[in-house]
C-alpha cells in the first residue's frame, strides 16, 4: 500500500479563504432573523460628567421606535466583571448602562431599539441627557496627581492597584556594584486594535423555550457566556447559546465582555424580539478596548564588560475608565514576568501602578504586556551599548542565556521551556551580512546620510496557560482547552474545538493535524468552532494558544480514537489489540501488512456493531481537555534598516529581517503570514499609530487621523526560522501569533536611534516616530 502523504508541516493553502475572499463568509451582521430590531446607543460626549437627567420622551415618539432603556431600567443586572483579580485590586462597578456618571467619551447611558437602523440612530439623537460636566484626566502620568478628578469612589488617587515582582534588595545591591547604570523614560503609547470587522451582536430570546441565543464577535464564546450569565445577567448557562461565527480579526479586542452585547441580551427578553447592534468605526475607536499605554522609568545596570547586572522598572499602566475583563493581568503577569528577556539578568525588580483615567478601557492587544517588556529591554540594552560604547550585536551576545533544552528559571517567576537565542541571532547576522552593513553605514554617514540598524532579540510567553499557575496569580478562569473528535459511520470526521479562529486559519491547520495523525484526506475533516451549543467547552483563542493548547487537546482525542479503533480492528482481525498498529490510514497486525482493516471500516463497525468486541461501547467519538504544564516561550531575532530623510524627517524602512523560533511549525505559510502581519503592526506602533487624547476627547478617533501601517511603508521582508521544539506539549509547537508585533517595534525604534546617533541622539522617549517628531528631534539634537 502506498504511504499516505504527510500534511502536517506543509504549506497547505487555507481552506477558509475561498469563502472569505469571495464574500461568502457568515459574519454576525450577516445573520438574519425575522422580526429583528436595531439598537443604537446614546453615549457620553464628555470624558467625565454626572448624569442629571435622561429625557426619552421625544425619542419615544420617533416613528419606528420599539423601546428605550436606561441604566435605571436594568434592575437586577450586575456590573460587568473583571476576570483577573490582583491582591487589593480596586474593582469599581462597571454597569452596562451608566446611570450615575459617564467616565469616558462613548460610555453608553441608554439603548434605543427601533424597527430600522436609521430609526434607531435618529431617535438616539433625540434622547436628551442633562449632564453636569466634571473635570477629566486622561494622561497616564497625571492620573494620580494631587488635585486630579476622582473617577471612582473605591479608588482613591485613581489607583487601581500597585503590584511588584522580583527582588528589590538584590537589585539595590547589584546597582551599587555596577560599573554603569543607564536610566531612561520609556513611553509605550496607547493603540487601537482596529480589526477589519467591527464588533457586532444579535441577541434573540425564544419565548417558547426561554432560551437565549447570542451571536457575537467573540474570540471566546464560552467565556462570553460564562461571564455574562453567571456574573451579570444571572441566567443559567444551559439556557444560553453563544455563537461566534466568522469573525473578521480581533487582535485581542474581541476577548472581552462588553456593555453592548450584554445590554442587547437583556433587552431581547424585555421586548421579546431579536435585537441587533453593529458597531460603526467611530464607535469602535471609542469603545473597543485599547492596548498598551505605559509610562515607565527603567534603569539597567552593567558591569565594565557590558554584562547586565540588574534591572529596575517602575511602570504606570493606564487602565482607562473601568477594568476591562483581563486588564489587570496585562501590565503585571503578562508584562513584568517577561522582563528577564533572553538575557542573563541576575537581579530584577519591577513595580507597577495601574491607574484609572477618563479614557476607553485598556486591555490585551496583540502581544499584551509582552511587547511592552520586549520594547523596554531592547531599548535599554541598546542604550547600554551606547553608554559603554559597545556594538549592539556584541552586547547581546555577551548577555544571552546559553542554550538550554529543558528549563531555565528566570528572576521573575517564569520557567522558560527551551531556548537557543544565540543561534537565532547568528542566523540573522548572517542574513544581514552585518560587517558589510556597518561599512556601508560608515560610507553613508560620510555623505551625510542618516542610515541606521536596529536589533530586537525577544522572547514571549505563549500557550497560555497552566490553570493552576494562573489561578494562583489571580485568574478567575482555567486556561485549558477542549477538543472533541467525532468519527462518522462512513469515516468522515467532525472536530469540535474550543479554540476560535478569527483569522488564524484553524480550519486548515487543525484539519492538517487530524489528516496527518489518522492518515485520511483533509477533505474528510470538518472543523467546528465558535458555538457553545456544539462544543463541550472552550477558553478560546488569544495569547498564541490555539496550536499548542487547542491542538494538543485535539491530538489527545485522536489518540483515544486510535486506541479504541485498535480494539475494534483487533476483534475484526482476530488479533490482540496490543498487536495492532495504526499506519497509513489502516489498522494492521504488526509485521503483517496484508492483515489490515481500513479506518473507514472500523468507523462503520463502531456504529454497526454486529461483529464487535464484548464490553466495548459502540460509537467512535472522543473528547479531551488539555491543561498545559507550562507556558511555551517562542523567541527570535529581528533587524530593521532605516534611512531618514534629512529634509522631512520621514523614516523609510530599507530592509526588515526576521528569524523566529516558534518550535515546530504546523503550516509554514500560515506562520509566515502571522509574522508578516505582526511585523506590520509592530512597525505601525513605531512609526504611525497612536491614540491621542486631548482633555479626555479622543482626537485620533477615525481612519482620517489614526494612521494604520500601509503596504507602501513596508519593504519585502526577509524571514527565516530556527526550530527549537518545546517539551511542554507533544506537538512541540510554541505559538506564532504575536512574535512579529512583539519584535518589530523595538527593532524599528533602535534603527531610528542608530540612524540619528551621529547627531548625538541615544534615546527617544515617545512613539510613534512621525516625520514631524523625527524632524523636531533632529532640530534639537546636539549638532
Amino acid at each position, binding site marked *: 500500500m502506498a504511504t499516505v502523504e504527510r500534511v502536517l508541516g506543509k504549506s497547505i493553502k487555507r481552506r477558509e479563504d475561498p469563502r472569505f475572499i469571495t464574500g461568502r463568509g457568515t459574519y454576525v451582521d450577516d445573520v438574519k432573523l425575522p422580526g429583528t430590531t436595531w439598537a443604537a446607543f446614546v453615549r457620553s460626549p464628555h470624558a467625565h460628567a454626572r448624569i442629571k437627567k435622561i429625557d426619552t420622551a421625544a425619542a419615544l415618539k420617533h416613528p419606528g421606535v420599539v423601546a428605550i432603556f436606561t441604566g435605571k431600567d436594568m434592575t437586577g443586572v450586575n456590573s460587568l466583571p473583571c476576570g483577573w483579580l490582583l491582591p487589593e485590586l480596586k474593582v469599581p462597578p462597571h454597569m452596562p448602562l451608566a446611570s450615575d456618571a459617564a467616565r469616558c467619551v462613548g460610555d453608553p447611558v441608554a439603548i434605543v431599539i427601533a424597527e430600522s437602523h436609521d430609526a434607531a440612530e435618529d431617535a438616539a439623537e433625540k434622547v436628551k441627557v442633562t449632564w453636569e460636566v466634571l473635570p477629566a484626566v486622561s494622561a497616564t502620568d497625571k492620573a494620580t496627581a494631587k488635585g486630579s478628578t476622582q473617577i471612582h469612589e473605591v479608588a482613591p488617587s485613581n489607583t487601581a492597584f500597585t503590584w511588584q515582582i522580583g527582588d528589590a534588595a538584590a537589585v539595590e545591591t547589584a546597582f551599587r556594584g555596577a560599573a554603569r547604570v543607564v536610566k531612561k523614560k520609556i513611553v509605550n503609547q496607547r493603540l487601537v486594535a482596529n480589526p477589519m470587522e467591527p464588533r457586532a451582536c444579535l441577541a434573540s430570546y425564544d419565548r417558547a423555550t426561554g432560551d437565549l441565543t447570542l451571536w457575537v464577535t467573540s474570540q471566546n464564546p464560552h467565556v462570553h457566556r460564562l461571564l455574562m450569565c453567571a456574573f451579570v445577567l444571572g441566567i443559567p448557562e444551559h439556557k444560553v447559546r453563544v455563537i461566534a461565527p466568522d469573525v473578521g480579526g480581533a487582535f485581542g479586542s474581541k476577548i472581552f465582555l462588553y456593555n453592548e452585547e450584554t445590554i442587547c441580551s437583556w433587552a431581547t427578553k424585555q421586548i421579546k424580539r431579536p435585537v441587533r447592534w453593529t458597531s460603526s468605526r467611530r464607535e469602535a475607536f471609542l469603545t473597543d478596548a485599547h492596548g498598551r499605554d505605559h509610562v515607565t522609568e527603567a534603569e539597567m545596570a552593567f558591569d565594565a564588560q557590558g554584562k547586565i547586572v540588574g534591572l529596575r522598572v517602575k511602570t504606570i499602566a493606564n487602565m482607562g475608565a473601568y477594568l476591562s475583563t483581563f486588564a489587570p493581568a496585562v501590565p503585571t503577569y503578562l508584562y513584568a514576568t517577561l522582563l528577564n528577556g533572553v538575557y542573563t539578568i541576575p537581579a530584577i525588580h519591577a513595580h507597577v501602578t495601574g491607574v484609572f483615567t477618563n479614557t476607553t478601557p485598556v486591555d490585551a492587544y496583540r502581544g499584551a504586556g509582552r511587547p511592552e517588556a520586549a520594547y523596554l529591554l531592547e531599548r535599554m540594552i541598546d542604550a547600554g551599548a551606547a553608554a559603554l560604547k559597545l556594538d549592539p550585536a556584541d552586547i547581546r551576545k555577551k548577555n544571552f542565556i546559553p542554550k538550554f533544552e529543558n528549563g531555565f528559571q528566570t528572576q521573575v517567576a517564569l520557567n522558560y521551556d527551551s531556548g537557543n537565542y544565540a543561534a537565532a541571532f547568528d542566523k540573522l547576522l548572517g542574513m544581514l551580512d552585518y560587517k558589510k552593513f556597518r561599512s556601508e553605514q560608515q560610507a553613508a554617514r560620510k555623505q551625510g546620510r542618516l542610515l541606521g540598524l536596529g536589533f530586537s532579540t525577544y522572547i514571549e510567553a505563549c500557550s497560555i496557560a497552566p490553570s493552576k499557575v494562573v489561578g494562583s496569580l489571580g485568574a478567575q478562569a482555567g486556561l485549558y482547552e477542549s477538543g472533541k473528535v467525532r468519527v462518522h459511520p462512513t469515516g468522515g470526521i467532525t472536530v469540535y474545538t474550543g479554540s476560535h479562529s478569527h483569522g488564524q486559519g484553524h480550519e486548515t491547520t487543525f484539519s492538517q493535524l487530524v489528516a496527518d495523525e489518522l492518515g485520511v484526506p483533509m477533505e474528510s475533516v470538518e472543523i467546528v468552532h465558535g458555538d457553545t451549543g456544539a462544543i463541550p467547552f472552550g477558553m478560546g483563542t488569544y495569547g498564541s494558544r490555539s496550536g499548542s493548547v487547542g491542538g494538543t487537546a485535539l491530538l489527545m482525542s485522536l489518540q483515544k480514537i486510535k486506541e479504541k479503533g485498535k480494539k475494534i480492528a483487533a476483534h475484526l482481525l482476530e488479533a490482540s489489540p496490543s498487536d495492532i498498529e495504526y499506519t497509513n490510514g489502516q489498522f494492521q497486525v504488526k509485521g503483517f501488512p496484508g492483515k489490515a482493516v481500513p479506518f473507514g471500516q472500523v468507523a462503520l463497525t463502531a456504529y454497526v456493531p454486529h461483529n464487535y468486541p464484548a464490553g466495548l461501547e459502540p460509537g467512535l467519538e472522543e473528547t479531551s481537555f488539555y491543561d498545559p504544564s507550562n507556558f511555551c516561550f517562542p523567541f527570535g531575532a529581528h533587524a530593521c534598516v532605516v534611512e531618514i530623510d534629512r529634509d522631512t524627517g520621514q523614516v523609510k524602512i530599507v530592509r526588515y529581517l526576521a528569524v523566529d523560533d516558534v518550535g515546530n511549525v504546523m503550516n509554514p505559510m500560515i506562520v509566515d503570514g502571522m509574522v508578516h502581519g505582526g511585523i506590520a503592526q509592530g512597525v505601525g506602533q513605531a512609526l504611525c499609530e497612536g491614540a491621542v487624547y486631548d482633555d479626555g476627547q479622543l482626537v485620533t478617533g477615525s481612519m482620517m*487621523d489614526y494612521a494604520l501601517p500601509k503596504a507602501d511603508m513596508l519593504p519585502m521582508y526577509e524571514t527565516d526560522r530556527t526550530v527549537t521544539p518545546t517539551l511542554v506539549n507533544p506537538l512541540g509547537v510554541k505559538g506564532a501569533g504575536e512574535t512579529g508585533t512583539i519584535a518589530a517595534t523595538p527593532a524599528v525604534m533602535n534603527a531610528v536611534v542608530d540612524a540619528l546617533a551621529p547627531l548625538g541622539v541615544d534615546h527617544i522617549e515617545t512613539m510613534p516616530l512621525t516625520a514631524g517628531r523625527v524632524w523636531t528631534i533632529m532640530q534639537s539634537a546636539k549638532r
Partner: protein
Amino acid sequence: MYPAAFEYHAPTSVKDALKLLDKLDDAKLLAGGHSLIPMMKLRLAQPKHLIDLGKIKGLAGIKEEKGVFTVGAMTTHWEVESSKPIKAKVPVVSETAAVIGDPAVRNKGTIGGSLAHADPAADMPATAIALGFEFVCEGAKGKRTVKADDWFKGLMTTAVKDNEVLTTIRIPVSGPGSGACYMKFPHPASRFAIVGVCAAVTVDKSGVCKKVGVGVTGAGTKAVRAKGVEAALLNKKLDAATIEAAAQKAADGVDVQPDLQGSVEYKAHLCRVFARRALEAALKRAQG
C-alpha cells in the same frame, strides 16, 4: 454611520438645479460625494435636501479649445488623471489627480466637487493656483468666471455663491519652455496633503524665468499662491541657488496650522522643502 434623513433631488438641467437651490432651505449640492457623504454619515453635516448633480447631462467631460481645457465640474478625478490630451499638454494636472485619495475615491470624486468643497489639505487647489485655473459659475442671472486667486476664500469656503453651481473649470495650456510639478507630503492616515506644492515655470532659451506660478496647499486653512517665491524667480536665471533662495519664502503668507503631524515650524519648513523640490522638478521638465 447612518446619515440623518434628507430629501433627495435629481434635476436633469443646471437650470432646474438652480431653481431647487433657490427654493429649498438648507440644501447642499451633491457631486461625487466623497467629502459630503462621509460628513453626513458622521452626522457632522445634516442638510435637509441633497441636490444631486449627477443626472445633469453635459456637466462632465474634457474639451480643448484654443489653448484652454474646459473640464466639466462633474468630471471624475480618474477621468482627469487618465485623459490623454491632459497628459500630453498639462501633465501636472493628471499627476495631481493621480495622488488624490485611492482608486475608489478617484472613480467617484469629481474635480468640481473637490474644488468647490475646498478642503484645506486637498491636492488640486495647489495646481489650480500654480496654473491659473478659472472657475465658471452659473446662477439665475447667467455665468461668471472667477480666477484661481479669487476662488479660495477660507476654510472650506470658495467664491461660489449659495445660489450658484460651479459648472466648468478652465485650465490654460502652457506654452513652450514650460514645466510643472506637484509634490506632496501625505498624511500617514488620510493621505491628504500635510503640505503640497505645485510649481509651474516657463523659461526662455537662456534659462531665464518668464512666467512662474507656485501654489501651496495643506499647511494652512486654504490653498494660497506663494507670491514671495514667484517674485524671487521671475525674470531671474533659474539655477539651484536661485530656487533654494526663493523656496525659503514658500511659507510666507500661509496661516500654518499645527496638528498631530507637526508644529507650525515643521509645516512651514515642509512648505520650503517641497517648494524647492517642486521647482527643481518643474525646471527640469521645462528644459527637458
